[in-house]
């Protein structure tokens, strides 16, 4: 079953090729199915004729839900609507492809797509009580790039803030929402997470991963779930610290480019805070053509968990674009992006907070 909204969007996309050039999956793989047109055509025929779901399941998961298509769409359609709904239907019908099913199992077991138990003991010193500021680093940051989390906390410390790290085993449900759609089980988990975070009694929740920030700032309120704190993205919070003169920055020389995280730029409409931080460090910034709201997704962590071969291509293609600017360093502002982009052959990658921590 698809909603009216999903069917209307499918009707538009099924015969439309106009946004295919911005689909980061299609651009990287060259596959005709990686983009909205093919998915909409499949779902349309499935509605009309039925019995196609098992055949098209894999294709419905080969999407990073990055909304580049929606941002390009001059009519304002949003393919993510039908893609999420179709995924919910696949899950309900037991038709999820095996490699995706493994990730969903991991998520259900551990609260993260890696299936890893995050050892919060290792962060014991950072998990404090009665702090005004709570930092939600998210599973990707704690598992994939812990050094960047430490750098971020060190920055807060240098700014004289008493901040605590939140328990990352409490999932924001960003990954669950992407893989399972808007279903009761996902909302229940979100409610649990919101109440656990609220129980800290902090005033501010700083969110490192834009995927989590989208949940707390947009999806939870839409679902009527309250987090009793002001939710702020890490980039805008740190830009604010700089404006308030809380950080003593030694200006650097060097030439960088910046990869806008898709959910930060497009869903949260935040593109300038990170640029402000980069300017404050003194770096020369060269922009990629696909920047700000036009940014090209590097794949994200959910897709990387079940289709690493695709994300490898997406990240390499994005890093190559970054290198074309002539910059020496590609700056990222999202733990998932850093994990995907770091270590490639084209350009050195640095996390924005680690860079800043080094020069404060």
């Amino acid at each position: 079953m698809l909603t009216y909204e999903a069917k209307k969007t499918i009707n538009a996309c099924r015969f439309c090729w106009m946004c295919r050039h911005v689909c980061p999956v299609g651009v990287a793989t060259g596959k005709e199915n990686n983009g909205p047109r093919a998915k909409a055509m499949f779902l349309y025929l499935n509605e009309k004729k039925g019995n196609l779901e098992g055949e098209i399941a894999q294709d419905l998961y080969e999407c990073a839900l990055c909304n580049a298509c929606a941002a390009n769409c001059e009519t304002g359609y949003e393919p993510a609507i039908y893609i999420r709904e179709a995924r919910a239907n696949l899950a309900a019908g037991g038709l999820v492809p095996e490699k995706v099913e493994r990730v969903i199992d991991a998520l259900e077991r551990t609260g993260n797509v890696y299936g890893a138990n995050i050892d919060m003991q290792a962060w014991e010193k950072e998990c404090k009580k009665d702090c005004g500021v709570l930092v939600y680093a998210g599973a990707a940051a704690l598992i994939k790039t812990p050094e960047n989390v430490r750098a971020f906390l060190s920055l807060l410390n240098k700014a004289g803030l008493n901040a605590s790290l939140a328990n990352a085993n409490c999932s924001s449900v960003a990954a669950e929402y992407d893989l399972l759609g808007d279903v009761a089980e996902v909302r229940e988990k979100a409610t649990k997470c919101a109440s656990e975070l609220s129980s800290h009694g902090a005033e501010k929740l700083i969110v490192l991963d834009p995927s989590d920030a989208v949940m707390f700032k947009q999806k939870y309120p839409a679902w009527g779930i309250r987090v009793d704190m002001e939710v702020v993205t890490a980039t805008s919070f740190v830009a604010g610290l700089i404006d308030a003169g809380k950080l003593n920055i030694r200006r650097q020389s060097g030439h960088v480019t910046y990869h806008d995280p898709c959910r930060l730029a497009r869903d949260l409409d935040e593109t300038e805070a990170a640029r402000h931080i980069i300017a404050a460090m003194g770096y020369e910034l060269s922009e990629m053509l696909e920047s700000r709201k036009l940014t090209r997704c590097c794949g994200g962590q959910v897709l990387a968990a079940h289709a690493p071969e695709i994300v490898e291509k997406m990240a390499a293609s994005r890093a190559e674009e970054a290198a074309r600017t002539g910059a020496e360093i590609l700056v990222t502002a999202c733990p998932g992006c850093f994990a995907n982009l770091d270590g490639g052959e084209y350009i050195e990658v640095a996390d924005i907070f680690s860079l800043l921590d080094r020069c404060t």
Partner: protein
Amino acid sequence: MNDFLLNTVYFELGDAVGRENVSIRTADKLSHSMDYFWLPRMYVDRGEFPPEADFVVYPGSAQEVSKVLVIANYYKIPVYTWGGGSGSQGGALPVKGGIILDTKRMNKVLDFDERSMTVTVEAGMIFGRLEWYANERGYSLMHYPSSINCGTVGGFLAHNGIGVLSTKYGKIDDQCLSLEVVVPNGQILQTSPVPKHSSGPSLLGVFIGSEGTFGVITKATFKLFKMPEVRKFRAFLFKSVTDGINAGRDLVHRVKPSIIRLYDEAETVSLIRKVIGFAKPGAFMNVAIEGDADNVELDEKHMLEIVGKYGAEDLGADYGEKWWESRLTFFYPDKCLDFPDMYGTIDTVSTYSNIEKIYDAMKAAVESFEGVRFIAHFSHWYEWGCMMYDRFIMDNPPEDPDEAFRLHNEIWNAGVRAALENGGVINDHHGVGIKLGRLMKEQYGPSMEVFEGIKEKLDPNGIMNPYKMGV
């Protein structure tokens, strides 16, 4: 194809391009069964499945394309080269089963030569992304079709496509300098390194516009242009299409605008209300001139002299500037022609002496079908003639797919024959495909032998894109 043979070929194709780049999955076959042609879309709209291929192959290089063609040639299996699938003539449809050869994995820029102002690119790159690549360096290919983001380099070459700036910068065959093409026996051919020479006839001309019926284009070199210092728009209202056409001809000869778009009375009625706020009869024209500021100033003076001579009313720059900004908007859903309508673009090109005759004849032919209306504008102007971009539209076509199919083809036959009888051609820039293949002999008569001879020599087993382009 029986399962045994299917498995045999599947295995060999996997060997040639890597197992992950060959598919026999339903989803891959389905997505390659419908292009922008109205008929397969009508099938899907009605819940029917258009014909599917047996295999979908994504080669990564000319060498891999060569291996695929050798296999196909041995087993005598049809090969349909598929770029973006945005073609409107059913050119890439796998109507006879066989192999879809999707080129989009071949998507790299290979050389960017600023000294010669050329760029060499693999044929599967989406054209809009190539344009972005050039823009990063301050250049442009000046090929701006409305489907720039839908189609591939190879697809535009295969249909000899055209963009909105063509009056100044040419059609894609004016912009392409050389090609690499793989032919069915597996040979990788190169055209001459540069297009202007006296070293035999142009090989480029053999392959540009050949719609995947002779071979697979794998690489192309194009001209680069510097971005113009200024691009200025101006709109005019002529009393008649005849005045507009004569003015357009004079503009090409004296000013060389990048854009001239002249609308017939029917299209003018709806456009002009938007421009001046009320209806006024006539023929609306939008012109762009571009280049260095001082040259453009002089061009503007000459342009005003010319349109003044034909009694045009000057409507200023606003319309053109807004049109340029939103030129792709009209191709997005809810803003473009779409189902349930039946429609088609019967674009053709002819001399200034013939183009109005064609307009009259085609309008009469197409509107003789009950419930069908006809609109047209003239864009892409040459020293000798211009292109007519016309459309037929039917609001309530038959629901039954077979009935709709027949009526659709009847209207096309009538429209294209009206062009052919009055000095026009089957098509200007969308190509022939399976949609118009049957009419090729009517245009070319015995000259078809030239194409048939080339086909016979390069593709003796007839594996390349069967039933397309009339060969």
